[in-house]
């Protein structure tokens, strides 16, 4: 009997998801033994034509990481959907948009200007912004077209499973792989989240919560948090209340606020939830003040929270309720 086939692909991503898969340790040898790798650009030289040549549904398990940022990403999403029996959105970029999705707060023109024109460089000759089509003596060179709006994998093609995290925790990946390898039944597919918890991160965070109220917010470099005490109550914007559990609260335990990489809980908007959670720890607005003074005091505390949109939606903007910012007249 032929071995089941495996593929892993990176769209708009950083490569961390591939590393996290290798982090499962020696289990990767079992994966290698059990599966026939048929496409995995990060570790083996396959061409897109190879995949095109496979019959539909040929790939048994395809882990897809990365957001849909350009025309190549989209093409591969469609191709791999067609060729895969089980397509998994693997990691925050594929699930929620993650860091690439933050481009949705601005325009491509602004992004390109920042990267190619305004940024300091030691090589002044390198100011040519990417062009989809370039004429060279040998002919025409085409590169993928950058999209205005970054999308998640499930906004482009139907996805069977979603494994969140930036990157997903090795322990969680291992649990899923073990289930696949031993033929244990997975939950029914259809955008189903696996390899994560289903309560808020705060519930698995061991730090003590005293429902303290705060009078200003701190950026991580401004404060050395007291150990053992909830970071949000110390003025750090810890995303625990609006983030899905599953990582074991890795960051808060070492004094680093959760930035929200496991994404929102089912049916929630991570940014909106975090906004509500943050508002409830703000102490300002004492009843002794008049309406106006109360509002001013609250506004002064909120002003210490730099970049609310980028903070609350660091990982989930592309999948959020508003999804992207309105910039002049968006052409989508």
């Amino acid at each position, binding site marked *: 009997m032929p071995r089941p086939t495996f593929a892993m692909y990176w769209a708009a991503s950083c490569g961390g998801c591939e590393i996290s898969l290798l982090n499962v340790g020696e289990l990767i040898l079992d994966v290698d033994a059990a599966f026939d790798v048929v496409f995995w650009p990060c570790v083996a030289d396959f061409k897109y034509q190879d995949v095109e040549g496979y019959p539909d549904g040929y790939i048994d398990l395809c882990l897809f990481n990365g957001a849909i940022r350009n025309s190549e990403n989209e093409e591969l999403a469609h191709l791999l959907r067609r060729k895969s029996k089980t397509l998994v959105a693997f990691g925050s970029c594929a699930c929620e948009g993650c860091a690439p999705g933050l481009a949705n*707060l601005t325009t491509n023109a602004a992004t390109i200007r920042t990267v190619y024109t305004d940024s300091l460089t030691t090589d002044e000759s390198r100011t040519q912004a990417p062009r989809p089509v370039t004429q060279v003596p040998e002919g025409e060179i085409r590169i993928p077209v950058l999209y205005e*709006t970054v999308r998640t994998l499930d906004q482009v093609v139907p996805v069977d499973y979603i494994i969140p995290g930036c990157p997903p925790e090795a322990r969680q990946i291992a649990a899923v792989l073990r289930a696949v390898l031993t033929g244990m039944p997975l939950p029914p597919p259809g955008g189903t989240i696996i390899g994560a918890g289903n309560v808020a991160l705060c519930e698995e965070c061991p730090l003590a919560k005293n429902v303290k109220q705060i009078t200003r917010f701190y950026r991580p470099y401004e404060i050395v948090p007291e150990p053992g005490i909830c970071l949000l109550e110390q003025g750090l914007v810890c995303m625990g209340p609006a983030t899905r559990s599953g990582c074991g609260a890795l960051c808060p335990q070492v004094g680093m606020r959760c930035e929200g990489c496991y994404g929102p809980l089912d049916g*929630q*908007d991570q*940014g*909106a*939830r975090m*906004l*509500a959670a*943050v*508002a*409830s720890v*703000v102490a*300002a*607005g004492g*009843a002794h003040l008049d*309406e106006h003074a*109360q*509002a001013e005091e*609250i*506004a002064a505390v*909120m*002003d210490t*929270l730099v*970049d*609310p*949109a*980028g903070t*609350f939606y660091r990982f989930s903007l592309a999948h*959020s*309720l*508003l*999804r*992207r*910012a*309105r*910039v002049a*007249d*968006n*052409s*989508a």
Partner: protein
Amino acid sequence: MENEFQPIIVGFLCNWCSYRAADLAGTARIRYAPTMRPIRVMCTARVEPEFVLKALREGADGVLIAGCHPGECHYVEGNIKALRRFILLKAMLRQFGVEDERVQLVWAAASEGKQLAEAVDRMTEQLRALGPLRWRQRVLGEQPVARHAREVEVGGD
């Protein structure tokens, strides 16, 4: 005036004061812009930021949250909680390119039908000046959602 843009305002009104204010405005036959779609909530603190974002995405041109004056909340300080969220929400919406006038918080006691009506009129004028929001269509590039059959025929804005 038939072709004048009629904004859609989703109004979240507190059961104990502003909803009654709206009621009073009706029974007192105060004339004001018919632009608000009232939704009764038990307290302004019940208005999750998600409700506001959803309203804007689903076609509202603005959202009005109306509750009891500070110190008069039925649940002691639900309205202050709403105020805290509102101030942060506005800062965040600004980053999304949503103008301040599109989301407003006003206080209107049960007896203040006139004040509530004025708030709706004022907001209607401000939204008219800003023009339609149409998030799905203009921002997300999705198919237009017809608000009035006529609008689609004449091509919207």
